[in-house]
Structure formats: structure tokens, C-alpha cells
């Protein structure tokens, strides 16, 4: 098997390992605000698919420019977007319920 096919297979195994890791982590008794840490394997999985399956390193340079831009702009959307709810002063109501 050539190196490339082996790399693809290794990537797949890595993805399954990360999947198992996040699957397992989801059963840990984490505090509600800490549970988004389960998303760390997600970032690694996305990186693996992007580099090995989608081969972001191949092709013209603008391919990498577009990929970086997508991530940067996503960060701006999510980062600036959560600034408001994170810093808003809450006037507490009960968890909402249907009338």
C-alpha cells in the first residue's frame, strides 16, 4: 500500500479514536458550563479531515487563504456574537415553559 493510502487509513483510525474520546467524555459528570470542552476533539477531527481527506495543503495558495478566512470569520461571528449574552445583566426568570 502506498504512503498516501496508509495516511488515509491512519487518519480514519485517528478520527475513530477521537470519536471514542468525545463519546466517552460526554458521560463524565462535568459541570454544565464546562461541557462544551467536549468540543475539543471536534476541532481535532475537523483539522484531520481538512488536512488529510480534503488536502488543504494541496492546490493553489488561495485554497489555504479561503480556509483560513472561513475560520477567522466564523470566529468573529461566534466571538463577537457571544459577547452580548455573556455580559448582559440578567433579570432572572424561571426556565421558560409553555403556557
Amino acid at each position, binding site marked *: 500500500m502506498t504512503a498516501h493510502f496508509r495516511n488515509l487509513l491512519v487518519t480514519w483510525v485517528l478520527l475513530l479514536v477521537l470519536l471514542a474520546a468525545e463519546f466517552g467524555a460526554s458521560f463524565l459528570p462535568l459541570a454544565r458550563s464546562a461541557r462544551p470542552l467536549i468540543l475539543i476533539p471536534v476541532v481535532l477531527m475537523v483539522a484531520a479531515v481538512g488536512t488529510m481527506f480534503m488536502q488543504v495543503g494541496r492546490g*493553489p495558495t488561495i485554497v489555504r487563504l479561503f480556509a483560513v478566512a*472561513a475560520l477567522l*470569520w466564523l470566529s468573529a461571528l461566534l466571538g463577537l456574537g457571544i459577547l452580548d449574552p455573556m*455580559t448582559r445583566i440578567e433579570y432572572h426568570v424561571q426556565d*421558560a415553559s*409553555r403556557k
Partner: protein
Amino acid sequence: MSATTIETSEYATSYLTDGFTLRSWLLTTDHKRIALLYLGSITFFFFIGGAAAALIRYNLIVPEGMIASAETYNRIFTMHGVVMVWFFLIPAVPVTLGNFVVPLMLGARDLAFPKLNLISWYLFIIAGMVVVYSLFVGGVDTGWTFYTPLSSEYSNGHVVATVVAIFIAGFSSIATGLNFIVTIHRLRAPGMTWYKMPVFLWSLYATSVILVLATPVLAMTLILLGFERIFRVGVFDPALGGDPLLFQHLFWFYSHPAVYVMILPGFGVVSEIIPAFSRKRIFGYNFIVWCSISIAVISFLVWGHHMFVAGTSIYSAMVFSILSYLVAVPSAIKVFNWLGTMHKGYIRFDAPMLYALGFIGLFTIGGLTGLFVAALGADVHLTQTYFVVAHFHYVMVGGMVSAFFAGLHYWWPKITGRMYPEMWGRLGALIIFIGFNLTFFPQFILGYLGMPRRYHSYPPEFEVLNVLSSAGATILAVAYLLPLAYLTWSLLYGERAPANPWGATGLEWQTQSPPLTENFDETPIVTDPPYNYPPPEVVPHRV
């Protein structure tokens, strides 16, 4: 190449003669023909939005409202906003002038994805048909901003139909933006490095960045709004645990950069016209091109300034206010670049130049007044008043529409092979400037005095200013109908245009007017920097 004698030239073959059947137009992939298809479409929508504007100003002649009930008035200004924003301003320059000129300016034979270009026009037409349908069945009363819970729950208008139309139009925009970005990266003529590209291309690149990255967020927002409206699920309803500000954040994440989509191409057009009619290299090329890119980037970071009184956290509001001041800087730099270009230039006051000068004046006023509303404290007083209405009309109408007409007149000889009648062109530019100021300057005062926007009636003490504004609107209407008349006239009776009637630099002027379907006989090779006009000392000018 001299502009003093206009040769009569009969170009028997051009992209216009390359097929006379309906099929050759409706199934064309020629970027030039698609530009004309779009030109017809957006002109149609401009007059629909303009008709709505006429109804608005007519209604506001008397304090109690001349014609409409509050509900009807809400539908009229919504129609005006929706049609003007999505079916005129956002497409206008990119899809008409951009589609036509970009490959020519790059020295390319077409865009990167010509079939995608045609698909984008069909998406636009389908969206247009849906929006016309929604208008015919009564329209919607939420304002073009569709704030919840009015749009998601209480409105009796046709929210879903209108939102579907905008959704489809959004994909047309994304397709156009994608095409431009890839084309500019990949299809430049040999020798044309980034820094040899005319500023218009940089501006359209920046515009396209916004189109491709902001519009998808609008698409998802409209899906969520539709879901909310149909199933009453509560994503934006606080009684059900949702957050109405989520809608506003998502909406403005798109809509603020969208306003830069509307103005950046105008900057680009003006950046072409000022050097050509000052016969001088553009001042500070590196600054002006990087300012375009910075505007595109920073524009994504300021959306919260539309929400200062909506109930966001004060800390978020402060961050957005500071960032909004930052985004004003590159725009201001451009104004100095244009003025620096004109300084010691050999200036001709042809119609495109008059429109461009009008743009500079009106855009500067509009831009400066943006700083007022970007300040948290001042905005609390000015928001939702006519001050804001005047501000954005100064930049969008005074600015963008003037720039659109400037570009239309500038490239008209290239597109049609005909010269428009110069006197009428200059007259039109003048009438627009006068009519526009009369319409919108009183609105700054009205807003400062506290007249709210989107109200069909107003307190009697505001009557005089409103009447002045409406009078200005009738003058504006004439100013818009005038080019429609004489440009159409020129198609049949205008003088034949030479390849380069203005003596301008740029690859588009090196080919015949109108161009052949494949643009260039041979791929041009670029060696000169852009705006390669001779230095001012060489060109004679009046002391």
C-alpha cells in the same frame, strides 16, 4: 487616442451582433450580455422601489398622512426598503458594471465560471418574481429589517413570501461574489500583478469578500425566521426561552457588511473616474487599495451599532461603538486620496466626473453623520429618527446611486458603442445633486428635532421640513427619469463611440467599443502600472 475628436467608427461585429435570437440572450454565458440582462432587471426594480419612495414622500406632505393608514404606510416603506436594498443597491454596480468590466479590466476573456454567472441572473429573476408576487398580494409591514416578534408572530403581512424572495436573491449574490473573487485571483492577464490592477477591481474584490461571507448568515437567519413564523417555536420569543436579540445579531451580522457591499463598488467607480478626468495618477494607490480590503474586514466587526438601544449589554455596545469609529477611518482616507488625485490635475467636468464629484460631497456628509450615530450617547437620542434615515440615504442614494450613474455614463460608450448626449448628462448630474440635498438635508434636522422614522403621521411643527423634503423628491424623480430617457435615446441616435473616448488608461479601453464577444483578439500583456497618465507638468492646463 485624443478625446478632442470623436471618430465615427462602424463596428459591424461586436458582442451585441453575436446572435439576435432570444435564446442567444437568455442562454448566454457572455459576461457582457449577462451584465445587460441584469441592467434591465435592476432598472425595473429601481423604479418599483422609487415608486414606493414617491408614495412615502407624498404621504408625508401633511402631518396626518396624505393617503395611507398606518398599516398601509408600513407596507409601503417596507416594500421600498426590501426592493431597494436587495433588488437594486446590493446588486447594482457588481452585476452590471462589474460583470461587464471586470474581465475586460483584467485582460480576461470571461469570468472564471460563466455558467454560474447566468445561473446567478436566473436566481435573481426568480427572487424578483417572488418579491413582486408578495407585493401584489399585499406585501409585509415589518420594515426591511424584519425584527421579531413583529415579523415572527404578530405581522399580518406576507413575511414568508418576502423572506423566500430575499433568500433566493442572496444566493444570486453569493454566486456573483464567488465568481469575482476566483476570477480576480486566477484570470489576470500576464504581467498584471495585484498592484497593477485598477482600484475598481480591488473594490469589487472587497465587495465580493463581504458577499460570500455575510450572505450565508442571512440565509440561515431567514430560515430560522421562517421556521419561527410557521411553527411558532420560540427561538426569538422570550416567553418561550428564546432571544429576540439573537435575530438582530444574526440579521445585522449580514446587514451591516451589506451596506459596505453597497458602497465599496461606488468607491471603485469613483476611483476610476477621478484619475481619468483629472488625467493624473491616483494619489496613494497602496493606501486606497488596502483601505478597500480593511473596510471589508472591519465591516464585519461593527454590526452591534444597530442595536445600541435594543437591550444588548453595555459592554458589547461599547466594543461595537469603538470598532465603528475604526471602520470610518479607511473611508475617510479614500476621500483624501481622491482629492489628492485632483490636485494639480487637468480636470474635465464631463458627466461622469460631475456625478463622481457629487458622490464625494454627498458621501462625505453621509459618512460624517455616521460618526454621530456611532457614538453611544448621541445614538440614544438619534436612533429611530429621521437623522438615521438621512444618514443612510446620503451614503446610499447620494453616494451609491450617484456612483452608479457615474459609472454608467463612464462605461456607456464601451458597453453600447454610443455616446450619450453630454449636455443632458451634465444637467442630470446637477439636478440629482440639487434634488437630493433638498430631499434629505431637512431630514437631518427633522431627526435632530425628534421626528421618528417609520411613522405615517407626525406632529404639525415638522410640516415645513417635510414639505421641503417631498419637494426635493419630485426633483429627484425628474433627475432619475432623465437618464432613462436620454440613455435610451442614445442607443438609437447617439454618436458612435471610439474605443477610448475619455483617453483613459485601463485594458477595457484598449479594445473596441462595444467589445467583441471574446473581448480581446490576443491576450494582452501588462507592463505599465495602473493610471499611467503623464505627469501633470507635461499636460497643458489653465493657470
